[in-house]
């Protein structure tokens, strides 16, 4: 059947903020879907509160609603836009849950809107554990023995039948949230209690343990004619027990015979049929007992998933794009294969290479968290690599992680085989390197299989890598044969250098002298059977290259690598925009990146895509290959975060032109002494500061400028290692904690700044072309200085700054841009304390807030920056109409207000005792994503941001307040207002006393530590019992935070609003009135029209 003619407009539901388990991959799939639908002439209406995404760019939909994903808001959009259908299968679990909610509330039926992509019935069958199990058994496949428990008592009973260990899985949660292994009854009580809470249906599934089995995934697609294809098979290197998002995975599956593979395929097809997915894709996970091949179906997702994004990048088969086409009626055989263009999409890709995905974790941000990997996903990003064999793909993937110690090494290893085997038996971040060390020390494959259950085939590949390393190390000469051997097993120049006892540069020089360079192969879906028309390349040290010569002017754009906290989808947004803008300006755009979740690694985004690690070696080789024809104009390094920026110097040293701000200028901003000079020259102030490379130096500096001080290592992003330190013992403690991480040293000194208490922090994004400064936006933080700008909420335009203050900020930004010599983007952070403007830091690169500013004010900062980098001026861009005539420092008073709010991942991280890690915000960034609320004024916009981030404040109930002494004065007004609005107030002794004196009725509650008898309930228990609806708790500055920690952990576990700053609380209270009245919805396109009308 061709395209349905009754679907002319579609509401696409996005996935909301980036959270663990639901990340940039849904921007990739959503962007593809929006593009495809518009190409098909369908009017696209989009709702997604995540401003950092490319899909929410006004160019990708006809009506873009950066609004919270709630049934009420979506109904308002439906009433306003009258779509024919709602497409929920490309926005992850969030969109699917929203679709179910819309259906259950009768909203779809009421407005005559059809759900396309997946029917409610299919969604339920796929997601409801018991329904799904029944269906799997009906399909003739195996399932793990299991029971559904609705209470803890039931769970205990079932556990007797299943025995320990057993698996607990809450129904209807995403990313495996709340699942875990129970080895004892104690574990069971803890996991089930939490799981019952997390599950929207208050039920958990208890299951026999299949720990250590082999784990596989299939990605399937099916159309209305029952045509079904398996797009990709994925094998997990880490066996069952580690969430697939946290596993090292490989595509295609490498340890199955055809008979076994076809068995999985048959089961998969039976299941997709039985579930009834008939216009889209699904993902099915299998476990196979390595001893006898018994197959168990673990789960299926009736939607585009994280794995489908990976499968799309791994095969070149664009699952989301095809899913969108199927949803509007096409059949698979009616859709052409993009890459070959002559063959149809109704086929199964075949690979002549190996793809390895490795997860990137952020445990360093949560030092208290238990780093054991479980069935709850904890990784924040991933890197993918393509190689002509597994060894190469694995080594490329590991170096793509850009993390110290993530690659195999042959340096010192003090641990014994026994110790290494013991460490390897627990899955953790970096286990693969432990495995490599154990094998290197002489442990056998059998021993490691016993310890890790990693398939012997994968273990032997590491043995092979170790053997090659040994050959490299012991050979007399580093000759052609040896280098080719090393390179065919994925060794980097750095690794070869290490093995030979010299540096990376020397290894590279030898290699280049011998004329050994990689060739570039093509991802073509068909193993070379048909010519590929899409230049999607990866390197190999084979013989034949497939890079087509071109005589165009080329620009290379360096992406930002795997997502991590502090460097996420926002940077991909900027890279993609640069690619679009430069392509439109006539350049051939060449993207290099290794993050499979992103839009930048979609082969549709740039003229050429190189899926390669972002290391100097890999980037230099791509540039060399592309320099064989045409003209290399230069490399864009300022949009890909610290990853790309970090390569600038090396590229420049190799004679590669860097576009925009020069590496020397970048240094001016990063190097404290040089930057002070710029500030002095401009008459600007920085907080008193100094640098130190060790503890003694740091104490000396801190005592000189006076405590509290803010300490941070240089050259880091996301506030890595950044803390507020109140005294010298704390400083000693800080040094003890960062020791051995290599983040502070003679070349990377520690920056020590006077910490400004109670200052207002301001973030500015600006463009500078050498003559004109163009302000993108001036953002006022809602929290006071001291909380990382990535975790802080902020408002644009600023709501409490006067015109004169904004002008001062503007002039200061210009002076800094001039002083540094910026060409392109600049981000400056200021603080205003006691009326004095301080410059905190300046970064001559795209910041995290670029997409937020662009969406809030309609200024395409990244596009403009990329044009400036290749020579355009601000004046020209204004003439062209790319930039509005008035910059972001001159927002009209009636312009809408946009509020950015951070989303934090605390609920995913628990200590070894099983308690959620502390959720107090600080100078080190820990948020994974953000949302935006936009409306006519600050309270409304703020309320929307809260609604989008965590569901918003309840409009009644009990608010519990316990604040530090310094906050007691500020708490009175907001709490009084809450009481007037009808809230009950509870507080700990000290806070209650203050409140009562101010005429607020506050019920006194025991702190956790004050609890003396079993029957007295502390606040923690009240929270667990659901008797508290909002928690306000601010940590006291310097003392132990233990008591507050228990309270905050309980609030996070109970998933109730938690305020750790008074500023946030005040904003939330101010927005309560508007929240009660309901919200209007306005699309970005409408805001743009209003701006034009006013201009």
């Amino acid at each position: 059947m061709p395209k349905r003619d009754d679907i002319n407009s579609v509401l696409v539901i996005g996935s909301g903020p980036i959270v663990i388990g639901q990340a940039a991959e849904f921007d990739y799939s959503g962007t593809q879907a929006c593009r495809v639908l518009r190409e098909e002439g369908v009017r696209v209406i989009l709702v997604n509160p995540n401003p950092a995404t490319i899909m929410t760019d006004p160019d990708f939909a006809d009506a873009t609603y950066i609004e919270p994903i709630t049934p009420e808001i979506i109904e308002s959009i439906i009433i306003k836009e009258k779509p024919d259908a709602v497409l929920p299968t490309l926005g992850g679990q969030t969109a699917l849950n929203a679709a179910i909610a819309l259906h259950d509330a009768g909203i779809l039926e009421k407005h005559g809107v059809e759900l396309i992509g997946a029917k409610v019935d299919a969604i339920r069958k796929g997601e409801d554990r018991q329904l799904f199990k029944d269906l799997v058994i009906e399909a003739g496949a195996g399932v793990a023995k299991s029971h559904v428990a609705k209470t803890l008592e039931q769970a205990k009973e079932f556990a007797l039948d299943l025995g320990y260990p057993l698996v607990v899985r809450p129904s209807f949660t995403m990313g495996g949230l709340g699942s875990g292994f129970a080895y004892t009854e104690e574990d069971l009580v803890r996991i089930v209690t939490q799981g019952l809470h997390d599950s929207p249906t208050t039920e958990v599934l208890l299951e026999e343990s299949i720990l250590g089995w082999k784990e596989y995934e299939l990605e399937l697609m099916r159309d209305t004619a029952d045509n079904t294809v398996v797009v990709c098979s994925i094998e997990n290197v880490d066996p069952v027990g580690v969430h697939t998002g946290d596993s090292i995975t490989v595509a295609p599956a490498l340890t199955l015979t055809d008979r076994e593979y076809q068995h999985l395929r048959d089961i998969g097809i039976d299941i997709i049929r039985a579930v009834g997915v008939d216009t889209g894709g699904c993902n099915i996970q299998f476990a196979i007992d390595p001893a006898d091949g018994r197959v168990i179906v673990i789960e299926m997702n009736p939607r585009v998933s994280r794995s489908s994004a990976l499968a799309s990048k791994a095969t070149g088969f664009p699952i989301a794009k095809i899913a969108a086409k199927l949803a509007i009626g096409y059949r698979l055989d009616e859709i052409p294969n993009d890459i070959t263009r002559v063959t149809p999409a109704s086929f199964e890709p075949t690979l002549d290479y190996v793809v390895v995905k490795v997860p990137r974790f952020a445990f360093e941000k949560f030092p208290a968290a238990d780093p054991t990997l479980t069935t709850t996903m904890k990784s924040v990003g991933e890197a993918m690599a393509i190689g002509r064999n597994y060894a190469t793909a694995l080594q490329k993937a590991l170096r793509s992680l850009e993390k110290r110690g993530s690659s195999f090494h042959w340096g010192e290893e003090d641990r014994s085989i026994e110790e290494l085997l013991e460490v390897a038996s627990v899955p953790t971040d970096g286990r693969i390197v432990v495995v490599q060390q154990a094998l290197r020390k002489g442990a056998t494959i059998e021993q490691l299989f016993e310890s890790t259950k990693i398939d012997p085939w994968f273990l032997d590949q590491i043995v092979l890598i170790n053997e090659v390393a040994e050959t490299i190390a012991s050979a007399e000469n580093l000759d052609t044969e040896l280098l080719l051997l090393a390179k065919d097993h994925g060794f980097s120049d750095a690794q070869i250098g290490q093995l030979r006892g010299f540096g990376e540069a020397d290894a590279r020089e030898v290699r280049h002298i011998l004329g050994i360079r990689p060739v570039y192969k093509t991802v073509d879906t068909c193993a070379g059977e048909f010519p590929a028309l899409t230049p999607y390349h990866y390197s190999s040290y084979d013989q034949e290259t497939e890079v087509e010569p071109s005589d165009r002017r080329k620009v290379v754009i360096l992406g930002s690598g795997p997502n991590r906290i502090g460097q996420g989808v926002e940077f991909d947004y900027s890279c993609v925009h640069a690619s679009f803008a430069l392509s439109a300006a006539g350049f051939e755009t060449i993207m290099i990146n290794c993050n499979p979740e992103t839009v930048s690694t979609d082969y549709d985004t740039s003229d050429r895509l190189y899926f390669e690690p972002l290391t100097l070696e890999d980037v230099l080789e791509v540039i060399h290959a592309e320099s064989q024809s045409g003209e290399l104009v230069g490399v864009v390094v300022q949009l890909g975060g610290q990853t790309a920026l970090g390569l600038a110097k090396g590229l420049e040293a190799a004679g590669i032109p860097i576009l925009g701000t020069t590496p020397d200028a970048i240094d001016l901003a990063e190097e404290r002494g040089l930057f002070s000079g710029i500030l002095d020259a401009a008459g600007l102030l920085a907080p008193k500061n100094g640098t130190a490379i060790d503890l003694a130096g740091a104490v000396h500096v801190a005592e000189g400028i006076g405590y509290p001080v803010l300490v941070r290592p240089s050259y880091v992003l996301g506030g890595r290692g950044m803390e507020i330190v109140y005294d010298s013992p704390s400083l000693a403690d800080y040094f003890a904690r960062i020791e051995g991480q290599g983040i502070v040293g003679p070349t990377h000194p520690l920056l020590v700044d006077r910490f400004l208490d109670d200052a207002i922090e301001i973030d500015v994004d600006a463009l500078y072309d050498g003559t004109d400064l163009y302000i993108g936006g001036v953002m006022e933080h809602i929290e006071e200085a001291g909380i990382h700008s990535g975790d802080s909420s902020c408002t644009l335009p600023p709501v409490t700054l006067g015109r004169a203050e904004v002008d001062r900020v503007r002039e200061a930004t210009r002076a800094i841009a001039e002083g540094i010599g910026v060409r392109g983007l600049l981000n400056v952070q200021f603080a205003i304390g006691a009326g004095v403007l301080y410059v905190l830091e300046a970064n001559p690169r795209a910041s995290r807030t670029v997409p937020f500013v662009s969406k809030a004010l309609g200024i395409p900062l990244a596009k403009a920056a990329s044009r400036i980098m290749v020579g355009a001026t601000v004046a020209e861009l204004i003439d062209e109409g790319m930039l509005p005539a008035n910059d972001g420092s001159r927002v009209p008073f009636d312009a809408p207000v946009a509020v950015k709010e951070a989303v934090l991942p605390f609920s995913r991280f628990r200590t070894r005792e099983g308690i959620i890690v502390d959720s107090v915000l600080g100078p080190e960034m820990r948020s994974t994503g953000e949302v935006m609320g936009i409306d006519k004024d600050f309270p409304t916009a703020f309320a929307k941001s809260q609604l989008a981030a965590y569901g918003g404040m309840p409009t009644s109930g009990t608010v519990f307040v316990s604040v530090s002494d310094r906050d007691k004065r500020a708490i009175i007004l907001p709490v009084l207002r809450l009481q007037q609005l009808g809230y009950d107030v509870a507080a700990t002794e000290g806070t209650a006393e203050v409140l009562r004196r101010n005429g607020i009725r506050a019920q006194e509650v025991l702190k956790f530590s004050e609890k003396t008898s079993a029957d007295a309930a502390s606040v923690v228990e009240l929270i667990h019992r659901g008797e508290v609806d909002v928690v306000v708790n601010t940590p006291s500055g310097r003392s132990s935070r233990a008591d507050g920690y228990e309270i905050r952990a309980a609030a996070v576990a109970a998933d109730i609003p938690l305020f750790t700053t008074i500023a946030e609380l005040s904003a939330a209270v101010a927005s309560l009135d508007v929240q009660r009245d309901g919200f209007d919805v306005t699309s970005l396109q409408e805001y743009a029209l209003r701006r034009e009308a006013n201009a």
Partner: protein
Amino acid sequence: MTETPAGTSESAVLVLEDGRRYEGRAYGARGRTLGEAVFATGMTGYQETLTDPSYAGQIVMMTAPHIGNTGMNDEDMESARIWVAGFIVRDPSRVVSNFRSQRSLDDDLAASGVVGISGIDTRALTRHLRSAGAMRSGIFSGDDALLTPGEQLDLVQSGAAMSGANLSGAVSTTEPYQLPAEGERVGSVVVLDLGVKTSTLKYLAERGFDVHVVPQSITAEEVLALAPDALFFSNGPGDPAASDRHVELLRTTLREGLPYFGICFGNQLLGRALGFGTYKLPFGHRGINQPVLDKVTGRVEITAHNHGFAVDAPIDRVSESSEGFGRVEVSHYGLNDNVVEGLNCLDIPAFSVQYHPESAAGPHDANYLFDRFRDMVIANTTTSTATEGSNE
């Protein structure tokens, strides 16, 4: 278990008839072998491929880089032995990891005397064969690696070409044998072994047929003397244009009204029997991901292919058999390149497919064709015992 990694192993060279040389490492048996170089794109199923008699005379290259990971086992043999003339892989596995594995691929290749080569740029070779077409080739290792390039090329160019080759005799059983029907018996089928696969026989028996496998040298009279309920021609190697005798045999039995089902080579022979020509594809279809449209149901099947030749028939209309067998339609065609993938006779009980419904290796999407065959035989038995009448 582990050999020293590359660099120290012996060298080998693949030589193509156009003079191209690909240097790699010796793999499997040492020595030299000649055959048609073809590539197969399946990511699983090397064992089934190696033991598929259709690959006789061919030097097969796997496009998937890692081969041998799951070893070899008795269960997955598609015939009693390995048939390929030579084997080309990029990264042979050093260990075997699978619960069913009984021995390593490396050992089986060596024991079967199959000369192979590893460590070459297999993708470059695929792309070359894709544009230049399948061609004669040779692998030289051991002492033969020491021959001069000129001597090696001469040997390759003196080898037999696939066009015009009749290889049925080389792969067929010499003695007839039988498999009993499983479950409810439908009737008997004579299987002309042109290189038949174990899976095909298994599926026929499972559909209730007593299976009589006969040598390819059998005559039409001998077939009819067995009084079967149906005739089946298997897959097999070689050029269908060089199998006149089998074509004549088929025409005779078709005229007798004997129901017929053919796979692969059996499809080409039905095509010829009906009066169509066959031709050599530039580089063939060898893979397990090929989309084929079933024109009857309108559904797309993902199918296993292994063919270098195809039937020349119009895919968009019903034709009249020039040999007097009535109307014929192309029932299936490949969606990648519109090659004929199945024939259906509208006036006599006969059909065939070019691809492999028995898969092995490959998806099971087309397995229903064995049901279709069974249904056709049942319908034919019913109508012919009742009264004369034409078959649908």
